[in-house]
C-alpha cells in the first residue's frame, strides 16, 4: 500500500525537534534549567498538537515537514510523540531539584527529542539514528549510575547493531517480502530493545540504577513495536514463523517477569519487571493480527505511558525524600505521613494491572480479547500474568507505604503542589479514559490496520 504524501503547512516537526534539543542544554542554574526544559516540552507538545490538527491522518498518509522532508507524521505516531511530550513535561515538572541540577531532566528532554526523531523518520536509517540516540544519555551518564557496571550496554548496542543490519536489508530488498535473516535481526532488535526474555534481566538491572525519568521516556517510546510495524509495512506482511517466535518470546517474558515480580523486594527492580510485562502485552496486541488486539495495544501503550510515568514520578519523589534508605529491607511505612503519595502510587500501579474504572481495564480487556481470538492459551497466559502483576504491585505498595514506621525516622512531607498537579492531571486522564474509553479509542482511526501475517514465506 503506497502512502499518500503531503506537506505540513508549517515546520511543526523540525521546530519541535529543535525545541527539545535546545531544552536539553545544561545551561544556567536550577530554575533556568527547569524553565528551559518546561518551555521545550510545552513548545514540542504545542507543535505536535498543531501538526495533528492540520495534517490528514491515516495509516497510509504521510505529512512531511516542509523544512526537513525526512521527518513526517505517519499513522498513529503523531499521537504517540504528543503523549511522549506530555509525559516529558510531567516528569520535568515533578522532578526533584537534584535531578535538575544533575542533568537528569535535560537527559529526559533529549530522550523525548530522540524518540520524536525515530517516530517521525521516513527512512530506516534516520529511524536508526533516533533509536541509537535514545541510548546517548545512558552512555554519557553511566558513570553516575553507581554500581550498575555496563549492564545497559548489551541491549542498547545489540539492538542498534541489529537495527543497522535490518535497515541495510531493508534498503537492499526494495519493498519485497523480507527473507529469514532480516526478520531474525528485527526480532533480535525488538527483544534486545524491549528487554524481552531472555534479556529481561539486563533491563531490570537498568531499572535498578538508571534515572527513572530516563527510563520512563526511553522505554515508553514503543520503538520495538514501531520497528515491527514499519518493517511489516515495508515488506508486505509478517512471516507466520516470526509471529510464532515473537508470541513465544512475549509469553515467556510475561510469565517470567510476573513470577519474578511476585517475590521481588526492591521497588525499582519490581518496576522493571512490571514494565517488561507491560511491553510484552503491548507487543502481544500488535502481533496477534486482529482489530481488538491492535486497538488494545495502542490504547494500552497510552495507559502504560501515563501510568508508568506517574508511578516513576511518585517513586522518585519518595526516594528524594528518604535518601540513604535500603528499600528492599526496611519498610518505611509512608502512608501515614504521605497519604497522597501512597494513593497515587497505588492507583497508578493498579492501573497497570487493569483496575476497573481506569483506562487500563479497557485496554487490557481489548488485548485479552484479541489474544484469545489468536490463541486461547495466549489469552489465558496474559490474564494469569496480569493477575500476578496485580499481587506484586499490591505487595510492593504494602511494603513501601503500609506497616510500622521505623523509630527515629523523619516524617516525610506529602506531595508538593508542583508534584501533585501533574500527577492529578495524569490520574484524571486515566480515570476519564476508563469511564469514557471510546473517546480515547477514537484516536486509532479505522484506517490503521493490524499487521497481516503472510504464511506463504
Amino acid at each position, binding site marked *: 500500500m503506497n502512502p499518500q504524501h503531503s506537506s505540513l503547512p508549517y515546520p511543526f516537526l523540525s521546530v519541535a525537534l529543535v525545541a527539545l534539543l535546545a531544552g536539553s542544554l545544561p545551561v544556567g542554574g536550577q530554575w533556568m534549567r527547569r524553565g528551559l526544559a518546561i518551555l521545550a516540552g510545552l513548545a514540542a507538545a504545542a507543535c505536535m498538537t498543531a501538526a495533528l490538527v492540520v495534517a490528514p491522518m491515516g495509516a497510509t498518509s504521510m505529512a512531511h515537514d516542509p523544512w526537513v522532508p525526512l521527518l513526517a507524521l505517519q499513522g498513529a505516531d503523531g499521537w504517540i510523540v504528543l503523549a511522549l511530550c506530555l509525559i516529558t513535561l510531567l516528569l520535568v515538572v515533578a522532578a526533584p531539584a537534584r535531578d535538575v541540577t544533575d542533568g537528569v531532566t535535560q537527559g529526559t528532554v533529549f530522550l523525548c527529542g530522540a524518540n520524536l526523531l525515530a517516530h517521525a523518520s521516513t527512512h530506516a536509517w534516520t529511524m536508526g539514528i533516533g533509536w541509537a540516540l535514545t541510548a546517548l544519555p545512558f552512555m554519557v551518564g553511566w558513570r553516575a549510575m553507581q*554500581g550498575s557496571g555496563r549492564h545497559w550496554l548489551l541491549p542498547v548496542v545489540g539492538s542498534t547493531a541489529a537495527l543497522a543490519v535490518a535497515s541495510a536489508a531493508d534498503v537492499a530488498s526494495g519493498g519485497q517480502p523480507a527473507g529469514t535473516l532480516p526478520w531474525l535481526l528485527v526480532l533480535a532488535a525488538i527483544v534486545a530493545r524491549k528487554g524481552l526474555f531472555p534479556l529481561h534481566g539486563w533491563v531490570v538491572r537498568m531499572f535498578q540504577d538508571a534515572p527513572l525519568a530516563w527510563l520512563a521516556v526511553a522505554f515508553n517510546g514503543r520503538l520495538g513495536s514501531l520497528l515491527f510495524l514499519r518493517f511489516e509495512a515495508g515488506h508486505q506482511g509478517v512471516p507466520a514463523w516470526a509471529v510464532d517466535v515473537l508470541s513465544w518470546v512475549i509469553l515467556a517474558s510475561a510469565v517470567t517477569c510476573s513470577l519474578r515480580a511476585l517475590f521481588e523486594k526492591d521497588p*525499582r527492580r519490581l518496576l522493571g519487571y512490571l514494565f517488561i510485562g507491560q511491553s510484552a502485552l503491548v507487543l502481544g496486541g500488535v502481533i496477534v493480527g486482529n482489530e481488538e488486539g491492535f486497538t488494545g495495544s495502542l490504547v494500552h501503550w497510552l495507559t502504560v505511558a501515563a501510568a508508568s510515568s506517574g508511578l516513576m514520578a511518585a517513586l522518585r519523589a519518595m526516594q528524594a525524600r528518604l535518601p540513604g534508605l535500603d528499600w528492599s529491607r526496611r519498610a518505611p511505612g509512608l502512608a501515614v505521613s504521605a497519604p497522597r503519595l501512597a494513593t497515587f502510587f497505588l492507583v497508578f500501579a493498579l492501573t497497570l494491572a487493569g483496575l*476497573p474504572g481506569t483506562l487500563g481495564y*479497557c485496554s487490557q480487556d481489548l488485548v485479552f480479547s484479541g489474544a484469545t481470538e489468536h490463541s486461547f492459551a495466549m489469552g489465558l497466559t496474559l490474564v494469569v500474568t496480569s493477575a500476578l502483576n496485580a499481587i506484586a504491585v499490591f505487595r510492593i505498595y504494602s511494603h513501601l507505604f503500609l506497616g510500622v514506621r521505623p523509630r527515629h525516622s523523619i516524617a516525610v512531607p506529602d506531595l508538593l503542589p508542583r508534584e501533585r498537579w501533574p500527577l492529578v492531571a495524569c490520574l484524571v486522564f486515566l480515570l476519564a479514559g476508563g469511564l469514557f474509553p471510546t473517546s480515547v479509542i477514537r484516536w486509532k482511526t479505522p484506517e490503521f490496520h493490524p499487521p497481516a501475517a503472510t504464511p506463504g514465506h
Partner: protein
Amino acid sequence: MKTLLLLALALPGVLFMASGLAWLAGLKAPEPIVSRLTKASYLFSFLVFSVEAVRLLFLHDPSLDLRLGDWFATAHAHFGVELLFDRLSVPLLWLASLLVGIVAAFSGRYMHKDPGFHRYFNLLNLFGFGAFLVAAAGSVELLMAGWELVGITSVLLIGFFQERPEPVGNALRVYGYYRVADIFLVASVMLGHLWFGGIEFAHLHLPDAAAGGSWKVTATALLLIMAACGKSSVGPFFGWLPRAMEGPTPSSAIFYGAVSVHLGAFLLLRAEPLLRASGTAAAALVLLGGASALLGTLLHRSANDAKTMLAHATQTQLGLIFVEIGMGWTGVAAFHITGHAIVRTAQFLRAPSLLHEHLHVHAAAGGELAPTGEHLEALVPRRAQWWLYRVAMGAGFYEAVVSRALVAPLARLTDGLALLEPAPAKPRSTGPLDASRTEETQR
C-alpha cells in the same frame, strides 16, 4: 424511572470520585458533611430500589433491560453497558443499599475523629458502587468491573489500620486469593465470548448439548463456580475470610457479613442456566458447598474470638447457600442470602459490645446461662471429638497446604528463573547521580 435508577446506581460512584479527586487536590470536606452526604445517597438509592422492587415483585411488571450503548467498541467487538433490573438484581440492590446505608450511619459515629475517616467513607462509597454494579450488570464484563472494585476496596479496608503489620499482611494474602479467583472469572468471560458469543444474562444462548456443546457449558460453569468460591471464601478459597476480620468492624459487617461474600452466590444465581445445563457443575457445587459448610461449622465451634467465630459461621451458611443453588433451589437460596445478610450484619455490628451484652443477659438470667450446642457434640464419639478439634485448631490445615503445595514451589521456580539474570546491584538508596548527597533530606 430509568433516570432515577441510573442515578441511584451511580450516586456512590460519583461521591467517591468527587471526594477522592478533591482530596488528592488538597481539599477535605468536614466529617459531618461526608457522613450526611453518604447517608443521603444510600437513602435515595434505597427508596428508588424499593419502588422498583414493589413494581417487579408485587405488581409483576416486566424486568427492565437497559442498554446504554457501547462502553467501548472496535470494528468487530463491542463491550456494551447493559443493566438488568429483574427479580434477582433488584432485591440485591435493595438489600445492598439498605445495609450499606445502615453501616454508613453506624460508621459516622464509630469512625468519628479516626485519622482514616475520609479514607473509610471513600472506600465505602466505592464498595457501594461496585456492589450495585455487580447486582445490576446485564453482562459478565460489567459484572467483572464491579466485582474487582468490590475486591480492591475489601482489601484496602482489611489493611485499614495501616500502621499495624498484621492487617497489612492479611490484606495482601486476601488480595492474592481474590486475584487468583479473578483469573477464573476472566477465563470464563473469555470462553463465554469464544463459545457463546458473550455471556449476557438476559438472553444466554447456550450451545446445543446434542451437538457436543455440553462440555463447553460444564467448563464455563466450573470456572464461574471457582470465581464464586473465591469471592465467598468457599471450597478451595476457604482460608481467607478469617484473615479479613482485621478491618474496622462496620466494614467487616458490610463486606463479610452482608454484601461482598454473598456476591459469589449471586453470580451463581445469575449463571443458573449454565448450572442447570451441566449436572457435573451442579454436583461440584453441592460438594464444595457441603464440605465448606461442614468445615465452617467445625472451625466456628472452636474459634476463640467473636469476629473469627462469626467469619466461620458465615462460611457455614455460604456453604449451605451453595448447596441450595447446586440443588436448583434458587428461590430458597435467594431468601437465605437476604436473611443471612441481615442477621449477620447485626451480629457483626454488635460484636464490639458482645461482652457488655453478655453480662447483661447473664445478670438477667440470674447468673446462670446454660451452654448451647452441646446436644450436637454429644452425638460425636469422644475420640473423634479430639481428632476434629485438632483439625479445627489447625484451621483444616488449609494454610499449611497452600504454603507447601503452592507458594513454596512457586518461590523455588522464581529463584530458578533468577539464573537467567545478571546479579542485582548491592542494595543502595536514592538512585541516580546523587550518591554523594545522602546527607540531603529534601530536594
